[in-house]
């Protein structure tokens, strides 16, 4: 404690020295006098001391925690213990589901629209979580699959007049297909190289969409895409938004269910093993090519599906919606939420999408706050909001063990 105190004191003196000409001395050129603002000196000293102390305190706390973990004791926070409790889990899920069902009736259309985009990112995050979080294949061009889905619906709807429900699976399958197409050339790559190639793939899709006018109508995009239909009933915008909202909720539930089952299956274990150690994984008899391709294809599938919904929601798409920034946000959702954790990714998506939305009042500072939050998060909780919890299996020996011990 004393060490931290002394260091913080030094930091604050240093800051006072550095900012002295800026904060204290002010030359009034019209009256030719020098103002000495000693009060601001005090503020700088106090603020820098406080921040530095807090910083050091948090770092020390984290170090201590790490030490405990290295000694083999698995430290679980209270929240995680609560999550382990199955009855609590079911109750919480029930409440959340009920809340999400009445949501559009409590709040106005604006809120529903925001919630739809948050839910879209939840699905995107869960999809990317398969390739990045589970299989450990860093993908910086994930938005390309999203674009594939959106454009497949927009183009099919424009040329052939097929409806939303017919195109939803088509978008998913096309996303899948592109996942495999991208997957083949990068089977041998890993780490940084993989990231660069996927980044390139994301760029290629966007450039193609921007420049191939005959196919994609270029930067002007495609307008007047049909909203999802419900047995041919005419809906106004409010009704349609509510309808899309419900489709989105259903899709999120569907995605969670399937990704959860996949994660805890034989396939999911192979993905995680691939993430942990590629060579050992292959030596244990797992087909690397097949495992990687399936991870890519299944990750891309969700992006394709939700892309169709995105096109139907906005009724207008152009290549500007599918920039690298989107890929980066989706990746941040996965990293911030906790790699491989489904609940973490959902929380991450809500935080990253809803927070900037509700911080519009401070719109000038929101990207600044956003960036600072990310930096702090990575320093103090690098494993994400929810860290990796493994499934516990039931086996015959378990009961005897409990009896003996």
């Amino acid at each position, binding site marked *: 404690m004393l060490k931290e105190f002394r260091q913080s004191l030094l930091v604050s003196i240093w800051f006072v020295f550095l900012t002295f000409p800026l904060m204290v001395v002010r030359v009034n050129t019209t009256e030719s006098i020098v103002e000495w603002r000693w009060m601001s000196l005090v503020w700088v000293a106090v603020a820098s001391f406080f921040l530095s102390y807090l910083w050091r305190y948090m770092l020390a706390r984290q170090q201590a925690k790490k030490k405990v973990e290295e000694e*083999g004791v*698995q430290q679980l926070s209270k929240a995680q213990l609560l999550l382990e409790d199955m009855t609590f889990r079911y109750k919480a899920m029930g409440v959340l589901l009920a809340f999400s069902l009445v949501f559009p009736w409590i709040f106005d259309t604006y809120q529903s629209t925001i919630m739809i985009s948050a839910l879209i990112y939840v699905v995107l995050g869960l999809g990317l979580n398969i390739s990045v979080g589970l299989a450990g294949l860093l993908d910086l061009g994930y938005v390309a699959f999203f674009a594939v889905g959106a454009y497949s619906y927009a183009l099919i709807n424009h040329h052939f007049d097929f409806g939303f429900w017919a195109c939803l699976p088509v978008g998913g399958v096309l996303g899948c297909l592109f996942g495999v197409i991208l997957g083949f050339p990068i089977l041998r790559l890993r780490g940084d190289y993989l990231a660069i190639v996927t980044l390139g793939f994301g760029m290629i899709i966007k450039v193609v969409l921007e420049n191939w006018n005959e196919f994609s109508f270029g930067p002007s995009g495609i307008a007047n895409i049909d909203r999802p239909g419900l047995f041919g009933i005419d809906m106004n915008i409010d009704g349609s938004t509510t309808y899309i909202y419900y489709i989105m909720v259903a899709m999120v539930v569907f995605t969670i269910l*399937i990704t959860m*089952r*996949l994660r805890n*299956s*034989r*396939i*999911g*274990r*192979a993905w*995680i*093993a691939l993430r*942990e*150690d590629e*060579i*050992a*994984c*292959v*030596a*244990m*008899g*797992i*087909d*690397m090519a097949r495992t990687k391709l*399936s991870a890519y294809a*299944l990750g891309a599938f969700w992006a394709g599906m939700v892309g169709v919904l995105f096109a139907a929601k906005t009724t207008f798409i152009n290549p500007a919606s599918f920039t690298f920034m989107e890929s980066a946000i989706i990746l941040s959702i996965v990293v911030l939420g906790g790699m491989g954790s489904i609940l973490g990714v959902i929380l991450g998506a809500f935080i990253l999408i809803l927070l900037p939305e509700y911080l519009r009042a401070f719109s000038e500072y929101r990207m600044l706050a956003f960036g600072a939050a990310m930096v702090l998060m990575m320093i103090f909780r690098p494993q994400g909001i929810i860290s*990796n919890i*493994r499934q*516990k*299996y*039931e*086996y*015959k*020996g378990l009961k005897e*063990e409990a009896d003996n011990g």
Partner: protein
Amino acid sequence: MADKHKLLEVKGLTMDFGGLRAVDSVSLEVHEGEIAALIGPNGAGKTTFFNCVTGIYTPTKGDILLHPKGLATRRLNGLKPNKVTEMGLARTFQNIRLFPDMTVLENVMIGRHCRTKSGIFRSIIRSRGVREEEQQIVEDSYQLLVKVGLGEFANEFSKNLPYGAQRRLEIARAMATDPFLLLLDEPAAGMNPQETAELDQLICKISEEDRIAILLIEHDMKLVMNISNPIYVMEYGKKIAEGSPQEIKDNPKVIEAYLGEETDA
């Protein structure tokens, strides 16, 4: 000894890395029920030899033939590592390569992967067959953990295990692939004498109870001389001797190359 079934036959295996010949026409045989050992000074090419046999490298020259009992002979050259494992040849690594963020049980369950077959769609639907297969994987894996003495650690993260236990977990994981030949790359490295003695027993147990032939690389002479027969000696990529422990101890070439330092001391 001669009438025993030959499982692995390596003929004139050569591996070049650019201009460097890491393994130079090495021949070796492993028979049913044997615990064979491959020894030699550091950098002799033992691990490279293992990597060639298990498919991580494709050898420059030579043949690696596998004669599974009751099945046709297969040539392993250039096969992918997972195919080699599927054929019944499992390995461990010199520098431990577990899956650190998976539980001990899951590490072993990964080994069962190539012997089970639930696909993506069946896993999503989670039909009864899939659930039963899953439970079978769990039970089999747990039995293997008990066998290597790690039953109580089943739900720990594998990175939290002590070093010796991690080595035994690697063996359990390799055994989960149902091999008939197990390749152990320095299983006793970094172990204390007591742990080495336990490992000694474990290897003998695997050999006797499960009828799995073993080929091991080891530096711990006591362990090698205790349990293995025959022993193959490599130096600078070449095989310089083979024979029973006694023959190896008396072989002047081996003493010069490898044990020589011990007689000096």
